């Protein structure tokens, strides 16, 4: 133990500045497993980003919305569907953002999931002023049920689902609709940014996380045709595609589920770099971990259980490969990243563990800062440079999320307390669970 502490001190001293570069030859010579772990991390996590940046600098027009053809000068009706329970004043901000849109041919349908606050009254004040309809569900039924309720009222050629705590910008729709010139496109997701980055250290970190996970990762997935989730925070769908899959299924993870069902039905999915959406993120650790616990369990329910048949390649090679990538990335990686260094320590009795940690920290921090700088340039809405001070501490933000993932994946796989109050119990008991 004393030797280990000594080693950490020596390592920090030797490699503090150039740890990333200095550690590589040592790792190559000392333990090939650790070296190849770093190579794997680079290939899986950094290479797609680098390819994306190279593509962006070589041909920026690839990332702009395609030109209008059929919809040039012809605005099809877009039905905005909002399902919410107790959104409070957020519903006002949300509806006002839609009403400020440059796109005028819209209808807004808010399905209120039997809110116990004054949300429904706040929404009803818009009913007489604009094309807004408020539907009060007689029973608390969960998000998917209320999306389906609002969907029943929708008459648009396109359907924009929007979370009550999110908002669009005036040009968001204009930057999404052109993608539907391709008649095989079922849905287009916007680039999602954090609305409240200044609220806490956690929201500042989430701002960076969202840029990389919901904008940049979604973009390279778009180019490869392997978009896994059209976010429930906001997505524009083709009405016929949603009708084709019968709207939203019950259970958790309605957005991932509807996306995979669209993929299975062989519809194309796109994302728009230029269409921006702002969303409110959890401010406190309690809310953040609760949200991520739900997301993790949804992910296992959808990918490992309900849609495991993707892995059989019945729905095509790309869908199959995407499923295996998801299994690796979402289910196995969290354990791998924690388990491998421990395994290396036990099996190989290597003394380079501190070197590994310091070099990994240096590597990830350096490239994360670089990623964010490029993402700022690409999106024109990345985190402000004034927020870059959180980058060295970003790993701290990942620790509770990793802990939540490690525990919740296991809990869901072992079916421990599978019910989540997000779906009322009376409905949960009637749903087939795969």
């Amino acid at each position, binding site marked *: 133990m004393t030797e280990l502490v000594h080693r950490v001190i020596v390592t920090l001293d030797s490699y503090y500045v150039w740890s990333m570069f200095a550690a590589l030859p040592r790792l190559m010579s000392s333990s090939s497993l650790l070296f190849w772990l770093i190579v794997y991390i680079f290939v899986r996590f950094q290479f797609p980003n680098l390819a994306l940046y190279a593509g962006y600098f070589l041909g920026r027009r690839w990332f702009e919305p395609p030109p209008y053809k059929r919809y040039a000068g012809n605005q099809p009706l877009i039905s905005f569907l909002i399902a919410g329970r107790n959104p409070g004043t957020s519903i006002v901000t949300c509806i006002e953002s839609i009403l400020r849109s440059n796109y005028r041919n819209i209808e807004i349908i808010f399905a209120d999931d039997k809110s116990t606050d004054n949300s429904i009254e706040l929404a009803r004040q818009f*009913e007489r002023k604009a094309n807004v309809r408020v*539907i009060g569900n*007689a029973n608390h039924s969960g998000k998917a*049920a209320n999306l*389906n309720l609002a969907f029943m009222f929708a008459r648009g050629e396109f359907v924009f689902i929007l979370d009550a705590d999110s908002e669009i910008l005036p040009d968001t729709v204009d930057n999404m609709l052109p993608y539907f010139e391709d008649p095989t496109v079922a849905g287009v997701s916007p680039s999602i940014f954090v609305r409240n980055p200044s609220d806490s250290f956690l929201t500042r970190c989430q701002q960076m996380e969202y840029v990389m996970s919901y904008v940049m990762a979604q973009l390279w997935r778009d180019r490869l045709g392997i978009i896994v989730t059209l976010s429930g925070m906001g997505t524009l769908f083709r009405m016929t595609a949603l009708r084709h899959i*019968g709207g939203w299924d019950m259970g958790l993870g309605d957005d991932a589920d509807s996306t995979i069902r669209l993929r299975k039905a062989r519809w194309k999915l796109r994302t728009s770099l230029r269409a921006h959406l702002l969303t409110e993120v959890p401010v406190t650790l309690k809310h953040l971990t609760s949200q991520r616990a739900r997301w993790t369990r949804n992910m296992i329910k959808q990918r490992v259980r309900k849609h495991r048949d993707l892995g059989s390649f019945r729905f095509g090679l790309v869908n199959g490969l995407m499923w295996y990538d998801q299994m690796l990335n979402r289910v196995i990686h969290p354990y791998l990243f924690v388990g491998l260094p421990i395994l290396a320590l036990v099996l190989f009795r290597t003394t380079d563990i501190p070197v590994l940690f310091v070099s990994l920290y240096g590597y990830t921090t350096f490239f994360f800062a670089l990623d964010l700088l490029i993402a700022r340039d690409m999106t024109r809405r990345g985190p402000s440079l004034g927020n870059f001070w959180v980058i060295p501490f970003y790993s701290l933000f990942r620790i509770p999320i990793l802990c939540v993932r490690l525990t919740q994946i296991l809990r869901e796989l072992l079916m421990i307390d599978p019910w989540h109050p997000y779906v009322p119990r*009376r409905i949960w008991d009637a749903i087939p669970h795969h």
Partner: protein
Amino acid sequence: MVGGTTIVETELLLRVLAFIPKDAHLSPAWEARSRLGAVYGGERAGFDEDRLHEALETLANRGFLERIFVERLTTCPTCESHAINVHEACVTCGSSNLKRIVTYFHFRCGFVGPEGAFAKDPGGLRCPKCKGLLVDLGTDHDSPGVMFECAKCAAMFQNPEIGVRCLSCGAAFTAGAVDELHHRDVFSYRLTSRGDAALARGAIENEFA
């Protein structure tokens, strides 16, 4: 002229004061065919109803009668007629041709639709999405509520607009225009002490004296 009132008018006002029941109200009776929508039974005493109402209002304004509120009538802003039809109207096209529809939500697959979308089956209703059977309300399905469907433009909504048509002049009002409708209050009347005194004296005093 006495206090701005002609002798003929003064006589009418005195006759109207005498027409008010002692220690009771002169109450209106609803009469759809009348211009005001209510009559005060003046015909049996030889009064023209419109002139009687004018005289009652004059007397009330001058403090000889007290008004007691009975009802607020809504009237057409174009012709002031009380003969108006109030109906539920489509939020989109304003048509009154609406159908009330019961909606169901199937727990199992999440489908929400009007009752007509579910096929009738001997065991219950058959879900169009998952083909499952809806048997027991509250256990495998429930109703988000009663909605409306417009037979003219097919729009569906939960809260219809209020539409109004004047049956006298044909003017139609929907949505925000409903706020422009006029209102007229109908009162019963009773003698004040001033009215009692005028009646006992047999003269309407000059209010400006």
